Structures are given as structure tokens and as C-alpha cells.
């Protein structure tokens, strides 16, 4: 009963939105907005006959590769910078500048530098996604409680052990918030990187459908994008709940007090 109820909560609004969509496309058909039925009709043939392996999976692969590199690089550099006051003062204004650049403008630059290939597309995602992770890691490391630092120092916990046992867990809530931001940036950049001089991928396919007036197919591509974003977000939430269980518990206790 409880499961039924929570399922009902999850699907209620989507159902309502589809119903609204159906109702508003019922009368005079608008060429640019397909009915839900038309979308369902084209969805299968459009995606399950080769495009999943030919376009979607490579796109998702590049996205995951770019995200992984951005997250690892962001955390490693963030730790180095965050733990060193001089390095922090030196780099932070520069980092803020790079973060402020809208990542899509880097696509033409990277095309020139890296070339028109997968490496460029991954690079675009890395360059765009690294900043929230990097800056949040720096902030998370910088704002570690001084009493906590004195505790590790007094017990002789230093170097890599300190990073592993104290710094990373302590900064984890801030780092996770950075990763969450970079996920949505990554999805945007995945699509954009495929819209320039590309011949495959989700972004290319959707643009192609639009240019050839395959309107329901174009909409179905947007649906696929939305589903990928949703899946990413669910996976992230699952990971976050595991990594930060202590943090949410602590916050609950603090809020109750």
C-alpha cells in the first residue's frame, strides 16, 4: 500500500502533463507540435533501430568519460589548491574567471586545438564541468573546522592519511554539491559539442531531425535527452545518499535541536 502510494506520487504529475499535452493537441493539429500518440509511434522506430548503439550510447559514453575526468581532476587539483594557502590566493581569481566563461564558446576553440573528433567533445565536457567540482573542493577543504584539524594534528594523522580520513570526508558535502552542478552542465555540453561539425550523436541527430522537418522525431530526441538527465540525477542521488548518509543525519539532528 505504501509502495503504491509513493508510486502514485511519482507518476501523478507526469500523467497530468501528458494529459494536458494530449488535450491541447487534440483539435487543429499544429505541424510543429505532435500529439502524444504520434510521438509514441515514432519513438520505437526512431531510436531502437540502430540509433541507440549508433548515437545515444556513444554520446552517453563521451558524457560519462568527460564527467569522470572532470570530477577526478577537479577533486585532485582542488585538494592541492585548497590545502595550500599561497596556491589558493594565486589561483582563485583565475579559476573564477574561467568559471565565468560560458563553456559553449570553448567549442570552436577546442575544435581548432583538438580537432573534430571524440577527444574534442570529451574535452568540451571536461573544460565545462571541472569548475564547479574544483571550486567546491577548494571551498570544502578551506572551510574544514579548525578543531578537526587540531585533532588530526595532535594524533599525528598527516599526509595522505589525513586526506583520506579527514579532508575528503569532511569536504564531501561541498564536493557533492559541485558534482551535482557539473552533471547538468555536462548534459548541455554533450549536446552542444555534437551540434558543431559532427556526423553522429544525440545533439547531431536532434538537429538533423529539425532541419529535415521530422518534427515528432525531433521531439522524441528531446524526450531521450530528458530521460538521460533523469537517469543521471537518480544515479547521483543514490550515490549521494550513500556517501553523505552521516551528513543528512547530522543535519536532521541539528535541525531538530
Amino acid at each position, binding site marked *: 500500500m505504501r509502495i503504491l502510494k509513493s508510486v502514485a506520487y511519482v507518476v501523478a504529475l507526469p500523467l497530468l502533463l501528458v494529459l494536458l499535452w494530449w488535450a491541447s493537441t487534440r483539435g487543429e493539429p499544429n505541424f510543429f507540435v505532435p500529439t502524444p500518440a504520434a510521438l509514441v509511434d515514432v519513438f520505437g522506430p526512431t531510436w531502437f533501430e540502430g540509433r541507440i548503439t549508433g548515437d545515444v550510447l556513444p554520446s552517453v559514453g563521451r558524457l560519462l568519460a568527460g564527467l569522470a575526468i572532470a570530477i577526478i581532476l577537479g577533486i585532485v587539483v582542488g585538494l592541492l589548491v585548497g590545502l595550500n594557502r599561497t596556491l589558493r590566493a594565486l589561483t582563485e581569481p583565475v579559476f573564477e574567471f574561467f568559471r565565468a566563461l560560458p563553456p559553449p564558446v570553448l567549442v570552436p576553440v577546442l575544435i581548432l586545438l583538438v580537432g573534430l573528433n571524440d577527444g574534442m567533445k570529451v574535452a568540451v565536457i571536461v573544460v565545462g564541468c571541472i569548475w564547479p567540482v574544483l571550486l567546491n573542493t577548494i571551498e570544502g577543504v578551506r572551510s574544514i573546522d579548525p578543531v578537526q584539524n587540531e585533532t588530526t594534528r595532535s594524533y599525528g594523522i598527516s599526509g595522505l592519511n589525513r586526506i583520506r580520513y579527514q579532508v575528503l570526508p569532511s569536504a564531501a558535502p561541498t564536493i557533492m554539491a559541485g558534482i551535482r552542478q557539473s552533471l547538468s552542465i555536462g548534459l548541455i555540453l554533450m549536446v552542444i559539442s555534437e551540434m558543431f561539425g559532427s556526423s553522429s550523436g544525440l545533439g547531431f541527430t536532434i538537429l538533423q531531425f529539425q532541419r529535415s522537418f521530422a518534427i515528432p522525431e525531433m521531439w522524441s530526441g528531446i524526450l531521450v535527452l530528458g530521460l538521460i538527465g533523469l537517469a543521471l540525477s537518480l544515479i547521483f542521488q543514490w550515490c549521494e545518499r550513500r556517501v553523505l548518509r552521516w551528513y543528512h*543525519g547530522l543535519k536532521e539532528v541539528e535541525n531538530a535541536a
Partner: protein
Amino acid sequence: MQPDAISAKTTPVPAGATPSGRTLPEGEALLSVRGLKKVYSTDGGPIEAVRNLTFDLGHGELACLVGPSGSGKTTLLKCIAGLLGATEGEVLLDGKKVTAPPKKMAVVFQEYGRSLFPWLRVADNVELPLKNAGVPKAERRQRVADALEAVGLEHVPKSYPWQLSGGMQQRVAIARAVAYQPEVLLMDEPFAAVDAQTRADLEDLTRRLWKDLGMTILFVTHDIDESVYLGERVIILSSSPTVVQEDIRIDLPEDRDQLETRGLPRFTELRHHVYEQIQLAKKGHRPDAALA
């Protein structure tokens, strides 16, 4: 024993009181503080927190450091712990100069909530320093279990610290220090943030651990009653810039009881004496030895 003009007017100086820190013959002291001075440089100019401190701590002593607020107690403790460098003078542990936190020392901080790691469960918090020191797993387990039992927390190893009450959290921090098996345990106003009843329990726990485990404890507090009840010796600090105002031996019976001991006439006498010394310290009085 040199009663100076001012303390002669007040309560008689108890037996074994000296106007400066007591020192031991060379080689006998476990912890030596020699001419310790600490000046902080701030934007508004240098601030002298500790002027000149000298005292010794023998093996197995339980000494309380008490002083008016802002008298540099925490600064002194951090210098002893190797967390802060001294401007002048030195701290010696077993004859070796302390330049970084020594292995044989553990610190219990006042802010237990910030000193314990909220992402680790109770047993893991206690275990972490041992893990870092490379203690084998079986021994580690045993030491963690023993330490938790010693502080009466053997029933909550799997809880997170923040699920426990303040007093229990401070017990976890004490267990962490005990499991580390330090020669010297430094406690920085450890019970200032817990309620009165919990505080009495924790004081008795500290006395019991001291007796059972034979540790040397330096206990910093601003609470006069606590210092007299807990200590075998009370070192009174002057107001900032800090020197030792007086160093008293507490000649109360070894077995202390919250009601009985605190009801003894001798307890009241000692308490009065320490109180008066602190009042003098607040007014800026300094012992002659420090003026010279």
C-alpha cells in the same frame, strides 16, 4: 613556602604552595615547561598571551590549570601539545623538546562535537588514531573495546557521535584518547559545555581513568571547584600576560566523592584560597617572583 604580603592577608596558604610553578630535579619530570612565552602577531600589533611560564609535571600526576578567562590557558595547552610554537622558552616531554604533536600525548578538546568526526561511527572514531599509527587490527579492536568499556560506552559502538548526548560524545573523545595510550593526557576545558550532572559524572570518570590507567593528566579549567575536586595539584595562572600565580598541592583524600569531598572543610578552604588567588589575578596582582 613564601607567603607574600598580599596572600598573608587572605586565607592562609595551604601546605605545599609556592608562588611560582613547581619544578622537579632534572630527569624526574615527565613534562617540563621552561620559560614559555607566546606572542601572537596580529594586524593590531603583537599580543602577549603568555609571558613566562615554568613548571614540571611528574609521572602519574593529575594537575589542574586554572586561571581567569583570557589568561592564555588554551594557548599554553596548545604550546604543550605541540600545536602552537612558543615564541620563547620550551616544552620538554621526557627530556625531548616538543616541536610537533608528540606520539605520547593526546588532547581532549572542549568542542567534542567538532573534534569527533561526524562521518565515523563511535568505534571508528576511537580506532582512527590507532589505524593511522599502524596498530595491527586485532590489537586495535581490543584497545577500542577496552577504551569504550572504560568510559561506559560499550553499548553504542555503531552509533554516530551526533546521535549521542553531549556528555556521551565527550566520553567518546576521552575513549579515543585513552585507546591511544598516551603518557600525557591534555584536557582543554573538556566539560565546559555539558550540563552540571553530566559534568560531575565526567569528573569522576577522569579521576577513575587516572587511577586505573596511571596516566599523567593536565586538566585545564576555568572552574575553581572543578580544579580543586579533580586535581592532586592546582596551578593557578595570572591574568594575561600569563605567569604562574601559585602552585598548590591539593591534600584531599584520594578517593573523592561528589558529596562527601565537596562537604569537607578542607575542600572549602582550598576552594576559598584558589578563588581569592583568581580574584587577585583578575585585579592584576602578580607574584614577586614574576616581577623580578
